[in-house]
């Protein structure tokens, strides 16, 4: 029994963290989708082999499992990396391999955007050549669509860095309806989103701790006031008790544990709530400083809101968990 990352998992986390500190500062999160800095970040991530993290070695990937996916996503979440990482690294690989797209020569075809709920919407679609449509809840078929042939129009959204597009049509390249693969892809997407939320929550908390330690009012740092301390202690509790559940879900997936679906839903529910709760404390403890787009907190806050709602909201996953615990709700489950 050992509930801790291995040295290799720890190394991966550190490598990704360093890359993010180096190549994904807030200026990159704020950049236009076609900014060279974002392309540069995308290339670095490719160079690390991250897109092939979950791809078998014989198919040219790293052949790693979800125990590695979690730290990668925590760190990219921390940085709010403006790329479709959950889509491309977590959701896509099994589906693409099955459809014969895993090691295509075209690099753009390896960046994917996912639209599991078939909302006809994509986020961070700039580098992507493929759209994966369907699979919400881990059921149904997923359609592989050539994104270049689709009709795209920009949508205004709360999170301006998310580059949201309405996407219609597009040539269908393949369809994957293997229930095992679709379920796995969905669970990986959910897990990755949960892990990114942990990173975002930690980042917002770190920013807030720094801010309240430096901001002086009444002649003392505002962080010395007990009301502020208690809010941030509560925020830390939310993160500290969600993070191990996300780690656990990664392990359950990697070890093909029959409870994996339950654990992944547990992870997403808690991580979504933790990120939301930390976000609220963060904005409150910053005073007006957090309420301007000129200050960086909003980048992480808005990303957290979107990810909390995406890949099944906390309520959706709680309803699913209730089912796993043998207590089905009588009402209808909320839609994705």
């Amino acid at each position: 029994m050992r509930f801790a990352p291995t040295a290799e998992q720890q190394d991966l986390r550190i490598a990704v963290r360093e890359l993010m500190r180096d190549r994904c500062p807030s200026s990159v999160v704020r950049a236009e989708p076609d900014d060279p800095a974002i392309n540069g970040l995308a290339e670095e991530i490719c160079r690390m082999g991250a897109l092939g993290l979950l791809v078998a070695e014989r198919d040219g990937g790293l052949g790693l499992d979800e125990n590695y996916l979690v730290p990668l996503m925590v760190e990219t979440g921390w940085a709010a990396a403006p790329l479709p990482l959950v889509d491309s690294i977590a959701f896509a690989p099994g589906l693409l391999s099955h459809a014969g797209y895993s090691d295509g020569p075209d690099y753009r075809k390896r960046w994917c955007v996912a639209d599991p709920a078939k909302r006809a919407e994509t986020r961070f679609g700039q580098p992507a050549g493929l759209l994966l449509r369907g699979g919400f809840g881990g059921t149904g078929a997923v359609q592989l669509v050539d994104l270049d042939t689709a009709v795209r129009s920009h949508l205004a959204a709360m999170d301006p860095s998310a580059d949201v597009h309405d996407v219609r049509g597009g040539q269908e390249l393949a369809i994957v309806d293997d229930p095992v693969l679709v379920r796995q892809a969905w669970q990986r997407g959910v897990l990755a989103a949960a892990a990114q939320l942990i990173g975002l929550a930690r980042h917002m908390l770190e920013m807030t701790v720094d801010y309240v330690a430096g901001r002086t009012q009444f002649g003392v740092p505002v962080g010395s006031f007990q009301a502020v301390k208690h809010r941030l202690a509560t925020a830390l509790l939310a993160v500290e008790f969600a993070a191990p559940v996300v780690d656990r879900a990664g392990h359950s997936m990697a070890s093909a544990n029959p409870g994996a679906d339950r654990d992944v839903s547990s992870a997403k529910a808690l991580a979504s709530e933790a990120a939301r709760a930390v976000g609220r404390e963060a904005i409150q403890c910053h005073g007006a400083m957090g309420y301007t787009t000129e200050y960086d907190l909003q980048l992480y806050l808005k990303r957290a809101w979107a990810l909390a709602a995406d890949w099944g909201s906390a309520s959706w996953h709680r309803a699913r968990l209730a089912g796993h615990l043998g207590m089905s709700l009588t009402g209808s489950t909320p839609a994705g």
Partner: protein
Amino acid sequence: MDLTWSEREQAFRAEAKAWLTANVPAEPLPSGDTREGFAAHVDWERRMFADRWSVVSWPPEYGGRDASLWEWLIFEEEYYRAGAPQRVTQNGIFLLAPTLFEFGTPEQQRYWLPRMAAAEDLWCQGWSEPGAGSDLAAIRSRADRDDQAGGWRLTGQKTWTTRGAFCTHLFGLFRSGPSADRHRGLSYFLVPLDTPGVTVRGFPRLDGDEGFAEVFFADAFVPDSHVLGEVHEGWRVAMATTGSERGLTLRSPGRFKHAADRLIAEVAHRHPAATDALIERVTGVWLRAFAYQQFTLAQVSQLIAGEAPGARSSLNKVYWSELDIELHETALELLGMDGQLDNEWSRGFQFSLAGPIYAGTNEIQRNIIAERLLGLPRK
């Protein structure tokens, strides 16, 4: 990550489970916070001791099994799953014993530990006083030097002493040096309650049971051999127990996992009352208990790797105590008027409300989390 149990651990679980199945009383014992219930619980403790289950993690010479932390967790899990009685020896075994292991002389360890394991000595914790609660360093009870007799004379009052009216011994902090030094000049004493000059008055807790006591000291003599750790170093010695009190050893995840599972079983029994809103709350309770379990698995792994939990035990304290309240409030909501009768859920509910108060209030824990874990300025 390796979440599998070794063969040795599995065998340990099987043995614990078999023993508990054969020995846990079929009918729940009367509350251990009443005089007759306490006696019944002491009998239970002695039965556990006889088969070496009372202090599994201690060395065999004191009645233990040298169980690893993992095995201890396994034992706790099985203990609560079997619906076994509350541990009225808890203050001794989980709070005093770790301190004795760390600060006791070999003679003290040889003398006190086996008697504690055997439930011959029954310990209560004498820290709080009428004027010293959260501000524990405001302790005024005194220990005056008696060189001639080779010991100390205790004067003053302790209060909120859990099961003090039924216990035989008290471990407590007394001011042995000048009171201006708040944290210094305190000494940690081991006091038999039948010492002349000690009087104990039991009084009821919220549930009406005589679970609290006030303990009065009027020139009560204790020999030097009953000082634990260095004289005047009692604060540091006592702080070593607060870690165990707040953290894992006080409240293992097994307790909450079992209660959450029982709550889910109640939902099935009470179907008409189990509205969607309630099912969502029950799910939330289960989820928090699950999170506490995952957190503690990571924590034990860190401990085994040699990282002391330090202030992180304050995270445990706040989390389990708030979880316990939510768990019982949800249960009472589900039970409706049945929850207003005297039963396990209503008792558990009343007791859960004390969780954020004892072992350092949650306000104090949040101060600690903010200052020591987040590094926010003290002033």
